[in-house]
């Protein structure tokens, strides 16, 4: 666990850079974290982040498939917006814990 100063605020992050307190999240923090990943956030990015936060904070388990059927993005777009591991990256930028897959 570590502290990190970003977008003028101090936030708690774990050793993989995921925020440990979702209530510390702001849109500005997301934008700064995205820059570190080489991404400039658009309205579409934010719409996905807001959706992920809403679901995660309601205790729902998120999957790539669920986001693909959210009506906000399809899976192809989701991969384009958050290249590589989109669910992991989007969760990081949304200030929620890293998604775990249970066997």
């Amino acid at each position: 666990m570590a502290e990190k100063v970003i977008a003028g605020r101090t936030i708690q992050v774990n050793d993989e850079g995921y925020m440990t307190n979702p209530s510390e999240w702001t849109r500005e923090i997301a934008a700064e974290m995205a820059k570190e990943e080489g991404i400039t956030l658009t309205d579409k990015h934010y719409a996905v982040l807001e959706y992920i936060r809403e679901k995660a904070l309601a205790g729902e388990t998120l999957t790539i498939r669920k986001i693909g059927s959210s009506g906000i993005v399809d899976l192809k777009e989701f991969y384009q917006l958050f290249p590589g591991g989109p669910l992991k990256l989007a969760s990081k930028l949304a200030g929620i814990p890293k998604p775990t897959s249970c066997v």
Partner: protein
Amino acid sequence: MKNILILGAGTAGSMMANKLFRALDKKEWKITVVDPSSTHYYQPGFLFIPFGKYSKEDVIKPAAQLIPKGVEFISAEVQLLQAAENKVILTDGRSFAYDYLIIATGARIAPEETPGILGPLWQKDVFEFYTLEGALALAERLKNFNAGKLVVSIVDMPFKCPVAPIEFVCLADDYFKRRGIREKVEIFYVTPLSGAFTKPIAAKMLSQVMQERNIQIISDFYIERVDNENKKLVSYDEREVPFDLLTIVPLNKGADFVGRSGIGDELNFIPVDKHTLQMSHYPNVFVLGDAAAIPTSKAGSVAHFAGEILFENIMHIIQGETPKEKFDGHSNCYIEVGGGKASLIDFNYDTEPLPGTYPVPGVGPFKLLSLTRINHWGKLAFRWIYWNLLVKGRTLPVSAHMSMKGKKIIS
């Protein structure tokens, strides 16, 4: 007369029918089991069929034979659950009222959900091994596969028996070695996960096992479609994996009536309390086995351990007492790696697979997270245990709760 209705005559449903029938007063209770299939499949055996180690006869029995004579077995499909009215309607229009309902309708493969799986190459160069028909067809194809790229890939989580595709690539390595053509075959393991497995310590051990067998892991690969024309897998981020022979684990889904009844998640698995297996709002409805959306493996061992707990709880509830037992997510699986050896993992909701001994601490005879011959014999002996003890609801000499005794804590 009170009614217990069990939907599904697989591992979970048959086990519960046997346990409850033995324990309950036959003058007071009527138990009914509904399943569209008249055959009970020993699903762990499907893995061995493509390599010619098991035949069809090894993995099937008539479903009615595994259910007590005093239990009514109805061969039919469920149309709808009306939980508010304690009623189940079948596709043939019949309806059944229940006092207690156990949903054990499992998971099925849904190849139709991924474009191209059921294309022109289906059952020619594209196969699955989660059905008896699929495993038998693949066995024939493997006999004539002499060189090229064998790709084994997973569409999405969760799927039944999460170690099965790992076992499949290891057994394929062994199979081609025995045929003397291993150097002519490239084996690829393609997964949507970031590594071989979800749990870190087991993932490390399993990726080592695969590396030693020259099996290449392609991770974070989320399949969009199977390109039949060019014989390749294509991911959503436009990566491609060419194949000569593809063995795919299609998307897994719960039963269709779950969707029709509006009680499931987007894959038709049913959310329940992960400790009591009760549906919220309907405390007389329980979901056991693969049908439940709980954060542990979809595996027979989970159905078995959870079933032991559920049985105790139902007996308490019937007697007007509060259920005491809580399911801890206990799961264990043998992992065949070929060459007559296997590994074993044992874990639950909170504890990932760790090295050690099982089931007797310090003794074994099985060794967790290491490759031994005894583990392999354990896997083979399990078929007898399954048919004769487990589905018959007899008590096995292993605890339903996971134990830390005999486990070594490492990080």
